């Protein structure tokens, strides 16, 4: 599904403050199942996720996506090399292939729950009625239907997390990327979150989580745990 070969990411290149967040990482992530990137903060997990999620380009190395059919002509038979695509194409792939769940939830305050969920789909120009119906199905699946008309500010932490999941799912992505998703949740909600994600993984989606929370990496559904430190992979099971 996703293949990384010798991927590095350097920040502030040429400046005294230069540092390498991801250092020569080679990795293969198969479709389906949960993969956890485990490691202390500053180990390069988040940067690696943003590289895979087409948010940033690697300084060197190649990232290949397989099973993605981009809406533009591309060379190469064994997958799509995303490490050298222009920003417009990256965005195009990102919003059709990946769903993101952030540490801070990153929801837009002041507007409705339903609208927050539909936001990633807005630039795609899908008919409103269809999009809305899809968003309502997601709400029901995540037991949020009674909040459809609510403002975001009235929701509890667990509900906000579920809204963030629903938003990540609105474009029906093949890959879910979650960065420290349980950092602001108590244990009960963290367990519930992992349960939802394992459900998603069970339905064929690839789930990538960066976390240093034992509830996440010790979860029985975490099929694969990759340990990172100082931008390198130190262990993989």
């Amino acid at each position: 599904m996703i293949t990384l070969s010798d991927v590095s990411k350097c920040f502030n290149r040429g400046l005294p403050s230069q540092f390498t967040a991801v250092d020569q990482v080679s990795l293969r992530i198969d479709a389906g199942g949960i993969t956890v990137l485990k490691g202390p903060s500053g180990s390069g997990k988040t940067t690696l996720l943003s590289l895979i999620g087409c948010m940033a380009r690697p300084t060197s190395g190649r990232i290949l996506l397989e099973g993605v059919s981009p809406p533009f002509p591309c060379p190469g038979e064994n997958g799509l090399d995303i490490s050298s695509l222009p920003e417009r194409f990256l965005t195009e792939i990102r919003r059709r292939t990946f769903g993101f769940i952030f540490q801070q939830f990153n929801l837009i305050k002041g507007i409705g729950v339903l609208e927050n969920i539909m936001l990633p789909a807005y630039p795609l120009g899908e008919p409103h009625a269809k999009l809305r119906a899809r968003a309502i199905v997601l709400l029901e699946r995540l037991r949020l239907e009674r909040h459809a008309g609510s403002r975001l500010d009235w929701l509890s932490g667990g509900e906000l997390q579920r809204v963030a999941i629903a938003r990540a799912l609105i474009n029906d992505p093949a890959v879910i990327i979650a960065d420290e998703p349980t950092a602001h949740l108590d244990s009960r909600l963290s367990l519930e979150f992992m349960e939802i994600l394992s459900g998603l993984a069970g339905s064929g989606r690839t789930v990538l989580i960066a976390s240093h929370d034992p509830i996440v990496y010790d979860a029985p559904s975490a099929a694969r745990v990759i340990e990172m430190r100082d931008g390198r992979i130190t262990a993989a099971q």
Partner: protein
Amino acid sequence: MQPSLERHAHLIDFAISSLLRRKGKNLSLLAVYVLIVFVIASLILFVQALRREASLVLTGAPEIVVQRMVAGRHDLIPVSYGADIVSIRGVSEVVPRFWGYYYDPVFGANYTLMVPDQSPPAEGTIVIGPGVARNQRVKSGDLLTFRGASLQPLLLTVGQILPQQSELVATDLITLSAADFQAMFRLPPGTATDLAVKVANPREVATVAAKIAERFPDTRPITRSEILATYDALFDWRSGMMVVILGTAVLCFIICAWDKATGLSAEERREIGILKSIGWETTDVLLLKFWEGTVISLTAFLAGLSLAYAHVFFFSAGLFQHALKGWAVIYPDFRLTPSLDPYQLGILFFLSVVPFVAATIVPSWLAATTDPDSAMRS
């Protein structure tokens, strides 16, 4: 709906929800905006209609009026000048005009008194403009008292009141017979107020005026085109004055808009980051900002313009009576001929809508070109 249209509809949806989050602030912004457009549009419509009126109505005015000047002041002109002027090539007719001002100390108003050379009122009767009738509260058949030249009160009967349509040219006009005019002002024999000169060919007007000024150094010929130019300048000046005032208001408004936009709050920056991280392109974000600006400014433009049209042409610019029309004892109560000039509207549009939309988009540009992963690291 096509996907590209649907995309715009989605963005408008979100732009409106975003604006409604700061409901009080944005509604008051909209209100101020409507008010500014309303004032400017009222001004443009009013001045434009008045200029149009002047150029249309005054087509029948004399081509040249010759006034005599003594020591820089207006003086009575000898009627005998006319015989000489009519001999100038191109002049078809010279008619002495007998007119003057009369200040009524009781009603505090100034009237324009005139003896028409064609079918003047019979001796003892007058025809008055609608403004005079309002000012004196008289109707046809009533008697009006004037102060005569020999301190004898002069009683004249109102024979007719000019109809409402005449307001704009004759509201303060009183026409009377030559005998009554003499009884009131006692002009020296053989003199008139000024001479109206008819020139058949409009291209000869300037030449004729020059010849008159040359032949009679003590006269001042005034051409119709000069009068029309004076009206243009007058309303330019007046509108110029207003534009200075309103320009300040608009500038304040732009400063507010600029401040709002450049001081892109941390919250808004964060939101742009979020949008980028969930898969929006830079162009999507800019388009969203474009719609945010357009929703406010286009609505304000259309609402302000509609209100201004109603205000100027249905309510005779009542709110700005004093600012736009000046003060007066006798107010002409006229209804302007409605007209919408696309050129003027275009200028108003570009002055009111474009700067605001630009001030909304430009600052977001920088925020929108940040890397999408910035939201992840915050």
